[in-house]
């Protein structure tokens, strides 16, 4: 991968909305295991006493988007559109709603979600079953399609170069960087908003509850994070501030040796992904100052991932677990990891390391994402000097 400049960030998260509030909150984030219980805003949680989720607190899209045209948008779309708007401004592509650099035909979006259409599907299924399919709201039907949110982001922010949705579970946001790298390299766009989004819903919470995947540490989260990514030459030519570079990507899939399990944590896949990302970045293991891991509190996955990290980077590797305070944001997870790395490059010390010790300075970060089905992806980011 040629180094890709990261010139902006739009983020909606449980700890802050917008780059600066997000960075500030990362200075001393409260682990979800220790956080006071907050009332759930995104769905009626009366049937789930004791439920704890990491919601985008007091998320009010009208503050960023105005109050027109939001009625039929689902929560995922609102978060993604807000993140897109914030990223476009943060990167300096837009000011007061207008393009000041590049043009709509040359800017696009490439982003992931894992279960983005769940809220709409369950809502419309209820209408169809409890009332009649003839009463399905046609204006909400497009939300059942998982690329709908990124489609709306293009409409709201006028992103016409290309629009690519990725659905790869937890690995989606990192895999979106690989797609973006290819599209940028072939000059299909001057810049792309790259990342992911995932929204809380009762169906999502219930599914993870029934799977027994929610524990004291493992909490579901939500949010959207989009990085403005462009070729270095383009960023320099327009005088943009380069906050970091994406320099390497790797991914792998390894199936379980037995036939039955579908859910499977593959440490081997993670090891392959990390080695590929390091190779792509021409980085030595010793160059990694800290890992923005996807450790979430689910023991089999955490064990496989941390084992793979240690096998490649050594036992003293510094490992952070942003999901411990942002929650498990699934399709947005890798994007939240990259957004966290941007904060570290900006001088925010990595908080609550689960292994290793704080680096004196954070210059190179490995971001990892562990899939639920034997897949894993990794990205190397470097501080812009």
């Amino acid at each position: 991968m040629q180094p890709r400049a990261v010139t902006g960030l739009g983020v909606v998260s449980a700890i802050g909305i917008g780059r600066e509030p997000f960075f500030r909150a990362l200075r001393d984030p409260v682990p979800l295991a220790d956080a006071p219980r907050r009332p759930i805003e995104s769905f009626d949680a009366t049937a789930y006493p004791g439920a704890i989720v990491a919601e985008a607190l007091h998320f009010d899209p009208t503050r960023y988007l105005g109050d027109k045209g939001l009625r039929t948008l689902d929560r995922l779309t609102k978060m993604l559109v807000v993140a897109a708007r914030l990223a476009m401004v943060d990167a300096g592509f837009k000011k007061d709603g207008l393009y000041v650099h590049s043009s709509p035909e040359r800017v696009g979006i490439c982003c992931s979600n894992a279960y983005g259409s769940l809220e709409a599907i369950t809502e419309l299924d209820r209408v169809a079953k409890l009332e009649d399919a003839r009463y399905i709201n046609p204006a909400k039907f497009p939300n059942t399609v998982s690329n709908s949110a990124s489609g709306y982001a293009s409409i709201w922010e006028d992103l016409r170069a290309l629009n690519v949705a990725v659905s790869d579970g937890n690995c989606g946001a990192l895999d979106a960087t690989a797609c973006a790298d290819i599209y940028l390299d072939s000059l299909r766009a001057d810049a792309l908003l790259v990342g992911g989004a995932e929204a809380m819903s009762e169906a999502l919470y219930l599914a993870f509850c029934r799977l027994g995947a929610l524990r004291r540490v493992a909490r579901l989260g939500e949010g959207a994070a989009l990085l403005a990514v462009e070729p270095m030459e383009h960023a320099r030519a327009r005088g943009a501030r380069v906050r970091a570079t994406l320099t390497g990507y790797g991914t792998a899939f390894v199936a379980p040796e037995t036939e039955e399990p579908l859910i499977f944590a593959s440490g081997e896949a993670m090891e392959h992904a990390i080695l590929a990302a390091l190779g792509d970045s021409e980085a030595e293991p010793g160059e990694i100052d800290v890992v923005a891991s996807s450790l979430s509190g689910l023991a089999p996955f955490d064990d496989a991932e941390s084992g793979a990290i240690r096998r490649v980077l050594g036992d003293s590797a510094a490992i952070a677990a942003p999901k411990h305070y942002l929650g498990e944001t699934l399709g947005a997870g890798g994007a939240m990891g990259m957004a966290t790395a941007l904060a570290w490059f900006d001088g925010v010390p990595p908080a609550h390391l689960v292994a290793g010790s704080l680096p004196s300075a954070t210059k190179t970060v490995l971001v990892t994402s562990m899939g639920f089905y034997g897949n894993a992806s990794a990205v190397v980011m470097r501080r812009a000097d």
Partner: protein
Amino acid sequence: MLVARAQRYKPAVQPQAVTSGVSVGERGLSRVYITGVGVVSSIGLGKAEYFASLAEGRSGISPVESFDASGLGREYAGEVKQFHAKDHLTAAELRRTGRCSAMTLAAARMAIRDAGLGDGDLSGGRTAVVLGTTMGEANIIADLDHRWIKSGPTGIKRALLPKYGSTLLPIHVARAIGAQGMVLTLPAACAAGNYAIGFAADLIRAGRADVVIAGASEILQELQFSGFVRLAAMAQNRCQPFDLNRQGLIVGEGSGLLVLESEAHAVRRGAVPQAEVGGYGLSCDAYHITRPHPDATGSIQAMKDAIAFSGIAANDVDFVNAHGTGTRANDTAEAKVMRAVFGDHQVPISSVKSTIGHCMGASSALEAVACVMTIETGIYPPTIGYETPDPDCDVMLVANTARVGKADVVLNNSLAFGGYNAVTCFARPGVLPPPQWRIPDGSHDRAPASAILARSPSLAESA
């Protein structure tokens, strides 16, 4: 009969096994060949049955059987009725998969067999799987929802939960063949097949994979069917693309998968390429979530880009597989694309959706298979049910009866929810110039803002 006619047609370049050394294009890019295709469709399983039905105009549209559609005012779909997962999957795979994944696995096995590859030939990190869909395992989530509605949270069957998710389609295929490279789902709605094939070809050109199983799948499902009825987009019992009196689309289902292979890999094993993947174009309308832009500006750009990335001119194109949904907005917009791209040089165009319905995420993959077969046989499949010309759709339609003609270069057009536009070029092996990673300066009207980019080192060079 058509096949016999087609055999008399002499293509400009005869397909043949690649036996010489690897020829590389600019910057050492590999050509990308399609060496196998697999199909699950309402008109047949496997490419031979599928394309014979298409060519003969045998409709796959029939009354829906998998759910009760009688109260919706629309009862017809391109439903796949002859697919039995147990004929294609192992017992363990049957337990792990829903209908969408099962169709995908079946089509993958057909494609791999068609490519002359065997079990284990594709194991390892140099094989990737890139697939598209719109809703993936829609039946699984519907089942879970209905249990939840009927019995509350405890009624949800835990074992079903992991089977939901569009992420799973490539996972199942990768498990079946031992692939350890990238597993990627691109849920680009009705353009998903073209998105997957285009990206898969780029993975190979960039040196990141030798073989990619690419394509897309979709299943017919009650909520999706009802949604299109509520959007007033569904026709009664037939789909008539480009006809003056067209009433809308007919929903379909199926799976179309292709084996994409680097030239070097194909050479090593003496494979016979069926077609070459040329360039592709992507754009986004950024206009409306379901309707195409009335001026079709994004679609026009995507088609121009596909032609430019292929290193050819518009008048090199022999045939266009239309998106052709049968809705008023789509077909009118698509006719504008044809006029804008080809001008007075009209190119034959046809929509297989008249025969199999709109298979949503799978549509452009199933149509890609049709494009490959058109290149192999010289047969342009017809748009059936065409009766009355529409002055707003002034296209050279292959109406009602298949035609035989030159088929060296074929375009596959697709538009989708979200304003997604994607066009892919397929060509007879040996016809296209060497592949190019970037559009040459000045060859199209969407040049990058900064000329400096054209001189930047590329991913392809570093591969």
